[in-house]
Each structure stands twice: as structure tokens, then as C-alpha cells.
């Protein structure tokens, strides 16, 4: 319980630190976003009065520039707690609205990608370990190393060029076809899956190799353990050994890796979504930079961070379910 409390505290603290960082970047930076926004607004409407300008900035960023810094900070925090991320300069809509319709799509492709990568990698890695030294093992290891060195966006671009434009097999961008009405109908589901195939595919193609190699290494190490020999001598079935003894123990370190890669995945969404013109949080983040739409930029950043913090938090807390030894004691240092 103490551990859960401590872990929750850390998650909250992380979010707070990031909020403070965005506040600092917006407000304190000389020549930073605040100045840029002021310049942008004045350029848009040269006849704007100073008071009007101030009010406009206040509405957009949820920060009122002429109050003492601590009051500004307090208001900013308070606004965020109520879900007020300011207003989009470009769309004149609340940032929270703009982001709310994007977030599910990012969540959709990123979790699908991570899940497939993990499952395929684990299965393949375990199989490779059992066939250690065989031709199959050697080729897959080579391919795994090679795939690990290919950035996913390179695969993505090649897929777009050939599968998308040359052979016209799959759509190259967007989240669903334009004529389809969103909702729980078959047409929409199929269209969404079709549009997600290339982005998810490029993630999985470049990602599964690393997981497989890792799983292979872990399994091979465990296959040499004494307790496995004991299990064999006890006459346990191979299936039971493979799942309960090798699989489970080899998976444990992978779970921690999964936890770390959640952050990488959501961070990577910035690149992936931009390349596939996939309307998620990452693409919004990049778009808003081009449009000098700083409230949206900071909002998207905050949201991605919160997603990662929650993901890591859940993974951390559920670790105890897989590994009973870990429950309750990360403070017990056992390196």
C-alpha cells in the first residue's frame, strides 16, 4: 500500500513538473512563445488596443501577463485542473476540444502497434530460443538486427511510396475514408483498420525484431538454469515447462522494457502521425508549431506526457501481479 501511495505521488509530481515546465516555457522565456503570440496577434490586427491585446492573450493562453508571476502560475494550474488548456489561436476553439477528438486515434494506433510488436516478438523470440543455433535461429537473428537498424519512418515512407501510391493497395493518410460516418458500423471499423494498417505496420515491422532478440536472449539464459533441469527430471510436460518455467521467467524483464517503451512509443507518435497524415495528438503538435499555435502545442505535449505517465504507472503497479516477488517492494534495493 505504501508503495502504491509513493508511486502515485511520483506520477502526480511528474505531471506537475511538466506543467511547470510548459508554464515556464510560455511565460518566462524572453522572446519565447508569449512574445511570438503577441507579435502574431498584432500582425493579424494592427489596430488592436493594448487592453484588447492583453485580454486576447489572456483568453488564449489562460495566463494574464500583467499579474504577479505567482498569481499567473496559480491561475494556470487551477485552469489546468479544471481541464482548461486555453484557446487555440488558429481555430478559436478550446484546446481541450481540439485535442479530445485526436487523442483516441493516437491511443488506437500506438497501443495496437505496441501490442502486436510485443506479442509477435515474444512468440518469435521464444521459438528462436528453442531452436537455438539452427538455420532458422541464425537467419531470424540476422534479420532482427537488420530491422532494428531501420528507423520506422523509413519503412513508413517506402510503404507509402509502393503500397500506397504505386500499387494503390492501402490508403496513405487520414484516419477513415471521407464518406464514412463514424460510429459502430462495419464500414467505419473496416475503414479505420485499413487506414491504420500502414502506420501500425511500419511500427511493427521495425519493432518486433528487437523484442524477439531480447526474448531469445532471456529464454536461452533460463533454458540453462538448474531449476529447469529439476523440472525436466520431475517429468513435467514440455508444454508446462515452456509456459510456466521458461516463458514466465523470460517475460519478467520484458515487462519492464514494455514499460519504458510506452514513453518512446507515444513520443514517436509525433513522427509517425505526421508521415501518415494521421490526425492524432502528435500531428496536432507539429501542426501547431507551424501555425504558432502555442496553447495547442503545450496542450498536446501535456496530454502526451500524461498518457505516458498513466501508462507507466499502470504497468508499474501491475508488475506485482506477474512477479509476486516484486509486489510491495521496489524500495527494497535488489540490483
Amino acid at each position: 500500500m505504501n508503495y502504491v501511495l509513493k508511486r502515485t505521488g511520483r506520477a502526480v509530481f511528474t505531471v506537475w513538473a511538466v506543467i511547470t515546465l510548459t508554464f515556464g516555457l510560455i511565460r518566462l522565456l524572453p522572446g519565447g512563445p508569449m512574445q511570438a503570440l503577441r507579435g502574431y496577434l498584432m500582425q493579424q490586427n494592427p489596430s488592436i488596443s493594448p487592453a484588447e491585446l492583453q485580454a486576447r492573450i489572456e483568453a488564449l493562453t489562460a495566463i494574464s501577463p500583467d499579474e504577479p508571476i505567482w498569481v499567473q502560475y496559480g491561475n494556470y494550474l487551477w485552469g489546468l485542473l479544471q481541464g482548461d488548456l486555453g484557446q487555440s489561436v488558429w481555430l478559436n476553439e478550446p484546446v481541450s476540444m481540439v485535442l479530445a477528438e485526436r487523442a483516441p486515434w493516437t491511443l488506437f494506433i500506438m497501443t495496437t502497434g505496441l501490442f502486436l510488436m510485443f506479442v509477435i516478438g515474444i512468440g518469435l523470440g521464444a521459438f528462436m530460443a528453442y531452436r537455438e543455433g539452427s538455420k532458422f535461429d541464425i537467419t531470424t537473428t540476422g534479420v532482427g538486427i537488420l530491422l532494428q537498424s531501420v528507423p520506422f519512418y523509413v519503412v513508413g515512407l517506402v510503404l507509402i511510396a509502393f503500397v500506397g501510391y504505386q500499387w494503390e493497395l492501402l490508403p496513405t493518410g487520414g484516419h477513415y475514408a471521407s464518406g464514412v460516418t463514424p460510429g459502430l458500423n462495419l464500414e467505419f471499423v473496416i475503414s479505420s483498420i485499413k487506414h491504420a494498417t500502414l502506420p501500425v505496420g511500419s511500427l511493427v515491422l521495425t519493432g518486433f525484431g528487437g523484442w524477439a532478440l531480447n526474448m531469445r536472449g532471456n529464454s536461452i539464459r533460463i533454458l540453462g538454469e538448474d531449476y529447469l533441469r529439476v523440472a525436466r527430471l520431475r517429468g513435467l510436460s514440455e508444454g508446462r515447462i515452456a509456459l510456466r518455467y521458461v516463458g514466465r521467467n523470460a517475460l519478467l524483464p520484458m515487462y519492464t522494457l514494455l514499460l519504458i517503451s510506452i514513453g518512446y512509443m507515444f513520443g514517436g507518435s509525433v513522427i509517425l502521425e505526421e508521415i501518415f497524415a494521421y490526425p492524432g495528438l502528435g500531428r496536432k503538435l507539429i501542426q501547431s508549431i507551424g501555425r504558432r499555435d502555442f496553447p495547442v502545442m503545450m496542450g498536446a505535449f501535456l496530454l502526451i506526457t500524461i498518457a505516458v505517465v498513466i501508462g507507466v504507472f499502470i504497468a508499474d503497479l501491475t508488475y506485482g501481479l506477474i512477479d509476486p516477488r516484486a509486489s510491495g517492494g521496489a524500495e527494497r534495493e535488489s540490483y
Partner: protein
Amino acid sequence: MSRTNADSEYAFEVTAEKTLSRRDRIRHRVDQFLLAPARILWTDWRARIGLFIIGLFLFLSLIAPSLVARPEPLGPLLAAPWPWGTLEYPLGTTYLGESVLAQLVHGAPSMLKMILSGALFTVVVATVIGTTAGYKGGTVDGVLMTISDIAMTIPGLPLVIILAASLPIAGNPYLIGILLSINAWAGLARSLRSQVLTLRESEYVEASRIMDISLTRILGIDIIPNLMPYIAMNFVQQARWVIFNSVALYFLGVLPYSSTNWGVMMNSAYQKAGAVTSLEAFHWLAVPMFAVVLVALGLTLLAQSADRLFNPRVRARHAETVTGEDGPEEDEESEPTTSVGAVS
């Protein structure tokens, strides 16, 4: 000198009979930290290929720019690469008629600068923080590790992007490299700390402590050399991360630049010549992509073979260093230390 010491009442003041000259010491250091690891690496085919590729890359970025003329818009527009085109433009030309090869060559130095500064920054910061936290323990440890945990959780790329958009940085490749690695030190610092936790209890460190040797000396002489192979491996991995993501962000056009590089090349091929929608300009996009993959492959192979440096059995064979002969080559069962294959 040693005679008199032997009579002294303080047994610990005894110094060695033979003192090493400065040159000997340097030679030993070089042996221990450079030659021996290099020889171990060389026994591995992965390392050989990796080193070859990295050597090629170094040649490309250090020497080739003075051999190949700067890209000028003089040639035919969007000429195909060699087997289909002429040897005058072996990798084809851009939509303005510049040689793609020249672009590749002149884009390489800034890649190297970014990679080096980013990886170096990561490793240095992580080592300082990780070893201090692990060795000191207590409040220092608590504070440093909380900071690392936070830095670790913040998604790197979005952070880099908003920093690049907010901070008034110019396109200095060294600065960009550091910016790209802004929170990459955290993970390494954490794992270094846990290794230091075990090291600090060892007898020789205890001895140094009793002799009242200063903290920085203990860290520098007793602790960090033990972590060197691990640090070196992470240097390589961070280099890979920097090249992956710098190219990606330049491709998306969100980083400032002062001189051309491979990501900028990809960006113009994509934006200006539509290299993805038509195959006519695809070579312009494919060349820098292939270069990135190749350098990343070299780095991956190097990182993978570097885990042999951890293997005590391989190390022991080389412990006698330069004069020793290599035993017959046998393949140890070393599982590759791979990084997460995620979007990294």
C-alpha cells in the same frame, strides 16, 4: 626510498619497489581502456562489420567533403542513379540538378557533429549523476533519482520539439545534438547508479574511503573505470537514437539548421519533388534513408558486440593485453544486449 619506508612505523606508507614511469602508466592505461577492448571487439564479426561501416561514415564526413565539390544546380533535373543514369552523377540529381552524392557528402559532417555531441552529453551527464547518486546515497540519491524518474517519463521527442520551437536556438549541430538528448541521460543514470550501489561496497573502494581519498578521486579512479564498457555501449546506442531522430525531425522540418544534412535532404525530396508520390524522384529520398540505415546498422552491430566486453571469460583472455596471444576463437554464448525495439 622504499627501504626507509619499510622501517617506518606506518606500514601503509610503504610504496612499491618499482614505480612506474609516466610513460609506462600511460601505456598501461591505453592498453587497458583502448587496446584490450578493441582487440576483444575485433574477434567478433559483428564488430568488424560495424567498425568498417563507422569507418566509412567517418571518411564520408571528415575527408570526403574536401574531395567532392559542393552541390551546384548544374546537371540535368532528376537524373536517375548510376545503373540507369550516367556515372557523372552516380546517385542521380535533385529537382534542381544538384548531384545527390555531393549533397550526401556535404550533409555528413553535421550528422557526425550531432551524433557526437548528443552521445557525449548523454554519457557525461548520466555518469556524473548516476555515480554521485549511487555512491553518496541518502538524500542526494533520493533527489537525483526523483529528477531522473521525472526526466525518464517525459516523452523525449515531443519535449525536443517544443523546446526547439520555444528556445531561440540557431541551427548549430552541436547544440541540436544536445537538445535531442535532453532527457536521454536519465535512463542511463539510473542503471549506472544501481551498478555503483554494488561497487561501492567492494573492499578496494572501502580501502580508499578509509584512506580518506576524496570523493571525486574515488569515483574517477575506483568506480568509473569499472563502468566504462557499459558506458561505451550506451554511447553507441545514444548515437543511434540521435541519428534516427535528428533525421526524422529534420525531415518533418521542425528543427532549425544552418548547413544541410540528411534529414533536410529527405525533407526537400519529399516536399519539393514529391519523392513519395512519384518514383521519378524516389532516389533523392532513398539515398539519405539508406545512409541512415547503414550508419544505424553499424552502430547496432557495434553495440551488440560490445557486450562481449562484459563477458569476463573473453576479457580474461585479453587481460595480459598487447603482448598476449589470442587463444583459438570460440564463440561464447553471449546473448545480444539489445535495446527495446520500440520507436526509439
